[in-house]
């Protein structure tokens, strides 16, 4: 029809992309390491399965009604897994192959950190829309203090994130990190507005079985622990590009041995639900950390001697993000700016550093 002639004309301008020369290499490596992917079936069978699953879900729902349980509890528990976890357990690290062009950064050292509280203000920018156009700024408070859990010396890091205007539920995320090497072993999340604990979870790695396990209990739920077990990535180069949730990024950077022209890669597990593959394998990728420069930076919290650190995920092809990390006040990120992306970018500034 003539109505869509112009659209069709534009669509004919589709380019013919050339196949990357290294893709077969990736496929061969994944296959050689025993990797496999469960591909979707034809829709007819899928619909039959969906029907069966629907019937099962209906039955479960009826049972749930009879037990008078609240569905929101389970949903909150699932939401707890969405945020990912950038620090990689030691056992996984031992299995992780090194990438030739990315020398590994030494493990984070917990003794480099010092306790304190840092307050940030983040400005959201979406396309041409800045916070002043309706997207409220976000305040973020990071607190780090020494403690213990289960008899083990630990850093307790808490992250309180809330919008300073508009809608949005505040979120408090507490993370216990082993004192010596910052390996996380327990995390608790609170929905602040709801004024109740969303979920608490413990994490453990079984290198022998190649599994990574969360155990959590939902307050107000059935009183039982729920365990989610995922397979660790095989010792292969099958790590994939993707975003990462740097909930613990200030802590991680504070523990890394930053220095003049220092660079290296930090492996990360992608624990966001969408990143976990159908076969339950957690993807692994590398974050490249590069110290570019050292300079004096002034923010509302004061004037600081800073490393200018560039972060990037080499597989993503994205521009680098730049952070200004205080040399002396470990675990503090002063200014952080992410280059414009397709949807959001952000700029953060440290408002205050409160040190004991």
């Amino acid at each position, binding site marked *: 029809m003539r109505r869509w002639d112009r659209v069709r004309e534009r669509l004919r301008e589709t380019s013919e992309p050339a196949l990357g020369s290294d*893709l077969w290499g990736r496929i061969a490596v994944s296959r050689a390491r025993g990797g496999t992917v469960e591909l979707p079936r034809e829709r007819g069978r899928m619909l039959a399965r969906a029907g069966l699953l629907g019937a099962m879900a209906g039955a479960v729902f009826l049972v749930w009604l009879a037990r008078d349980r609240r569905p929101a509890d389970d949903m909150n528990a699932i939401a707890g897994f969405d945020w990912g976890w950038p620090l990689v357990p030691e056992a996984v690290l031992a299995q992780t192959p090194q990438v030739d062009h990315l020398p590994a950064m030494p493990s984070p050292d917990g003794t480099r950190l010092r306790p304190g509280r840092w307050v940030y203000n983040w400005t959201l920018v979406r396309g041409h829309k800045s916070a002043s156009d309706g997207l409220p700024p976000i305040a973020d408070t990071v607190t780090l203090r020494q403690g213990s859990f289960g008899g083990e010396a630990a850093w307790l890091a808490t992250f309180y994130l809330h919008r300073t205007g508009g809608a949005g539920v505040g979120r408090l995320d507490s993370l216990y990190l082993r004192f010596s090497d910052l390996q996380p072993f327990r995390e608790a999340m609170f929905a602040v507005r709801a004024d109740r604990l969303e979920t608490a979870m413990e994490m453990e790695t079984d290198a022998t079985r190649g599994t990574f396990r969360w155990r959590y209990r939902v307050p107000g739920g059935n009183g039982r622990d729920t365990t989610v077990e995922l397979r660790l990535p095989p010792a292969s180069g099958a790590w994939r590009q993707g975003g990462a949730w740097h909930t613990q990024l200030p802590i991680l950077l504070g523990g890394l041995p930053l220095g003049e022209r220092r660079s290296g890669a930090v492996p990360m597990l992608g624990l966001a639900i969408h990143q976990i593959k159908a076969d339950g394998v957690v993807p692994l990728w590398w974050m490249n950390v590069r110290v570019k420069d050292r300079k004096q930076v002034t923010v509302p919290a004061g004037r600081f001697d800073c490393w200018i650190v560039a972060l990037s995920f080499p597989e993503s092809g994205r521009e680098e993000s730049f952070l200004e990390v205080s040399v002396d006040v470990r675990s503090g990120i002063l200014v952080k700016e992410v280059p414009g992306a397709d949807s959001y970018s952000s700029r953060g500034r440290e408002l205050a550093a409160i040190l004991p």
Partner: protein
Amino acid sequence: MTAPLSDDLASRIRAGSGEALEELYRAAGGRLFALAYRLMPSRADAEDAVHDVFVGLPRAIERYREAGTFEAWLRRLVVRTVLMQRRGEGRRLTRDSAYAAQRGIEGDGAAPPSGEAERLLDQLPAKLRAAVVLREIEGLSHREVAKSLGISEAASRVRLLRALERLRRVLETEKG
């Protein structure tokens, strides 16, 4: 003109031949990638889809019944793989981008579209995009589109009209 893929090649892959899999990649990988690229928002995502198809193919090929051409079956497999990968994308983009912005971190690694057609296609949700790519760019019949997407022919027509209309409005807005 490209030679059709033989069922013998499919049989050898089914028998576990890695050489046959590589032969298939050399013969059809480029075409399958081009298809994935048109359905995906970025080159990296398209490469991931093709990677998954070839890694999963030795197992998936057990379901190939030689009822149609091997390549048509492969192309449907690519389409389904792409749609599976994109299924959670809306939720992911909203949630992850927001959180990424809050934390000032990278998003999903999507690169900007490379051409005018790709830029237009990026305006469409995955299902409408698949319909318009398969029908208007790949030249499939509505029956083939319907089979690829697991929907009825009527639904294929509706999706195509919706997609074209949405794109027309995008162009009108830009022009205006």
